[in-house]
């Protein structure tokens, strides 16, 4: 509903006020006059009327509506009132997502705006998730909305020529929201779980609005398969539990089965393979293994090789090396990691040093392994990960 009001009024703040007033009016009128036949359309019509009244009353608001004549707002709103299918609501939400994830806005603004305007989280909740004060977050939102208005960022589904690129941008924002929650950065698991749940909700919404899109399905599958392991990956003392050591009975089967189904569908669509679908397929192979010994490592190595072609990055190379160690042993994996480290881009990446430490330990080279774990500890910032590394180091004594 907010999405439709934003389209009709062309202004985020005006739309939010109009929605508030429409709800207030509904609370006053529905108990006595009954709920209207199409409550959604009624709320939008009422919200639009309230906004138009406000524009007429208050000349300051006139400048906010920038060229949108009251008459045209009224004409558009009539269309909504007649539309009982509800399709325009979906289209408007999609427009809103594309606007919030517009490439002309900063990455920080994307995430903040999406959680605030699309998911409807309060400014306070968004601020808490990103460890900034409510005031800072409010300012960030105000700046982003001002840029949308001043720069003329359209409230529209992008042109076909740039649509796919823009969808990729939206997926990156949604995945960014998810990893923010998954990386345990907020310090409280409850907040992190909520953020992951919002990201999954966004994924479902996109899957509904852009059906049969391989990237959307792949991303949703990836998030579900990772989130299914949430309860198993942190111990009751708040320590990280690695995949190998997780109690697999704690994995959420319903999320896994939905994820597995989505991966299969995403990979069966002809055309370009989405990197998200490949990552989800890797997660799916882990999820399918009831015991860690059943993990199909050769296929995981193969999928990482596909991913390296689609989207090469040091992180993917590192994960590939870890998978190789499970198939060909630690010596070959260590070679891969050392060649990655020699290129120098990731010398401060703690997980690279942690993996080196593990391979060296397996190769019975304890002195070098200890050195590698120390390097990992020097670069790790998150408390649970630091505790894990310290436990590894203590194992040498």
């Amino acid at each position: 509903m907010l999405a439709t009001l934003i389209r009709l009024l062309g202004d985020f703040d005006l739309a939010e006020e109009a929605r508030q007033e429409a709800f207030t009016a509904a609370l006053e009128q529905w108990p006595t006059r009954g709920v209207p036949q199409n409550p959604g359309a009624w709320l939008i019509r009422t919200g639009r009327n309230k906004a138009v009244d406000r524009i007429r009353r208050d000349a300051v608001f006139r400048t906010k509506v920038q060229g949108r004549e009251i008459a045209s707002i009224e004409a558009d709103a009539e269309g909504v009132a007649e539309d009982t299918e509800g399709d325009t609501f979906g289209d408007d939400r999609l427009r809103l997502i594309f606007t919030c994830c517009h490439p002309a806005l900063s990455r920080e603004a994307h995430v903040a705006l999406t959680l605030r305007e699309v998911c409807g989280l309060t400014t306070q909740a968004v601020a808490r998730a990103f460890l900034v004060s409510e005031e800072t977050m409010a300012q960030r939102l105000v700046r982003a909305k001002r840029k949308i208005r001043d720069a003329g960022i359209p409230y529209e589904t992008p042109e076909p020529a740039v649509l796919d690129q823009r969808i990729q941008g939206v997926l990156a924002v949604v995945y960014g929201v998810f990893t923010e929650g998954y990386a345990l950065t907020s310090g409280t698991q409850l907040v992190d779980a909520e953020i992951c749940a919002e990201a999954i909700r966004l994924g479902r919404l996109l899957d509904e609005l852009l059906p049969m899109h391989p990237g959307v399905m792949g991303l949703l599958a990836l998030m579900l398969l990772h989130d299914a392991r949430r309860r198993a990956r942190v111990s009751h003392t708040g320590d990280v539990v690695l995949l190998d050591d997780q109690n697999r009975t704690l994995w959420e089967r319903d999320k896994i089965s939905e994820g597995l189904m989505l991966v299969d569908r995403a990979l069966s669509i002809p055309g370009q393979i989405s990197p998200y679908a490949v990552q989800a397929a890797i997660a799916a192979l882990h999820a399918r293994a009831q015991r860690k010994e059943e993990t199909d490592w050769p296929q995981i190595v193969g999928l990482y090789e596909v991913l390296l072609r689609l989207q090469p990055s040091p992180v993917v190379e590192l994960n590939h090396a870890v998978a190789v160690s499970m198939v060909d042993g630690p010596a070959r994996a260590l070679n891969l990691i050392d060649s990655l480290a020699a290129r120098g881009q990731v010398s401060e990446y703690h997980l690279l040093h942690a993996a080196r430490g593990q391979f060296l330990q397996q190769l019975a080279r304890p002195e070098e392994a200890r050195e590698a774990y120390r390097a990992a500890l020097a670069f790790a910032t998150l408390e649970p990960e630091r505790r894990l590394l310290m436990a590894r180091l203590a194992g040498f004594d």
Partner: protein
Amino acid sequence: MQYLLLIYANEKEIAAMSPTALGSMTAEYMEFTKGIVQAGQFKAGDRLKSTSAATTVRVRNGQVTTTDGPFAETREQLGGYYLVDAKNLDEAIAIAGRVPGAKWGSIEVRPIWPPQT
């Protein structure tokens, strides 16, 4: 809305271009300009002489002071501009992406304040 597309490039690199390269750049610009004129998006556009011909003027305490060249030493310099009419930022970005200089320099897209009413 109207947008100013500010074309930034390293003018030393432009100055060092061969006559052939310069010729094909000019041809690309003419082609691009013709395109936006035909599409009704063109309002104005010019190539600027190099910053070595620039003078910076300031008034402080009622005194006019002039200095040689632009204010800051930057890697890329303003070398030209287009003023275009575009439906929204997406259209302006699409036009900016077709400016030949976007391939070697950068284009800053700035919305113009609408006339005060």
